[in-house]
């Protein structure tokens, strides 16, 4: 199996994602430059965090038109796994690969902190190694993390069990106090209808190395690895 970490101008969490996968999880990983149009041979693509194109116009608005994104779209359409973290999630939203949009944090401040998340669904390639209702601590670092979608879209997400992570307190309660940015329904991460694309605002790549004394993020990468290991090679 091979993981690819895309680098856009302004990505800054690419090295962390690369290290988490190659060194902490021990899987073959390569960087993918944003101008590359051929991403055959990869099994999972990571769109990492950062401030691509300076977040100019809207966060992720310019990156979604990068040459590599056409390949990522096709890759996802064929069932390839795509994980968008923070700015990566924003790029997936702007690209229309996931529904909704991001608003500036309601407190008008960049928030960088520990964050409890509740695992809502296990039947995705990104969470299958977890336990239902499991509470994990995966850090957030963002200024525009207020997930928004209209009533119809929210109903659909809930009906189709596509809300994957929610901001919660230590006990797993979904409260307004535990919501760091004003996201509707405390949404921290969602997936697409086919469940092969996940976008999440928190950073699992920042807590996947036991050396740092904090590895709740391993759950996400472990799930992907488990999923890929089960796939019958073509």
């Amino acid at each position, binding site marked *: 199996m091979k993981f690819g970490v895309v680098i856009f101008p302004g990505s800054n969490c690419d090295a962390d994602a690369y290290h988490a996968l190659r060194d902490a999880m021990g899987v073959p990983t390569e960087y993918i430059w944003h101008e590359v149009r051929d991403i055959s041979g990869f099994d999972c693509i990571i769109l990492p965090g950062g401030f691509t194109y300076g977040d100019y116009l809207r966060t992720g608005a310019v990156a979604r*038109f990068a040459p590599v994104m056409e390949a990522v779209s096709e890759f996802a359409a064929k069932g390839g796994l795509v994980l968008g973290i923070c700015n990566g999630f924003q790029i997936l939203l702007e690209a229309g690969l996931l529904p909704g*949009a991001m*608003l*500036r944090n*309601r407190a*008008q401040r960049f928030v960088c902190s520990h964050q409890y998340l509740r695992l809502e669904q296990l039947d995705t390639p990104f969470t299958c190694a977890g336990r239902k209702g499991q509470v994990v601590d995966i850090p957030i670092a963002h200024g525009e993390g207020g997930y928004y*979608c*209209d009533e119809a879209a929210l109903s659909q997400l809930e009906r189709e069990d596509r809300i994957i992570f929610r901001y919660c307190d230590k006990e797993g309660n979904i409260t307004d106090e535990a919501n760091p940015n004003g996201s509707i329904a405390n949404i921290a991460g969602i997936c697409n209808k086919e469940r092969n694309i996940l976008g999440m605002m928190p950073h699992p790549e920042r807590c996947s190395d036991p050396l740092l004394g904090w590895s709740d993020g391993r759950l996400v990468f472990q799930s992907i690895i488990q999923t890929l290991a089960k796939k019958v090679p073509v």
Partner: protein
Amino acid sequence: MPKAKIYITLKKTVMDAQGQTVQRALQNLGFTEAKSLRIGKYLEMELEGNNSSAMKARVQEMCAKLLANPIIEDYRVEIE
């Protein structure tokens, strides 16, 4: 050269935390008559062309494709 004036605003259904914050600041400065404030973007574009309605249509396309996010923003285009 003709100029396009583009106004991009948050949809009415979207909460404008930035606008609310600034409105509170105005209140604190004594401008108590400012009851609500919403903040948007204003863009000016010089463009080549001579047909006003054709240019307007093109700029609206630019808005739909890149300049605005139709999920959370509305846009209005003026050509002069």
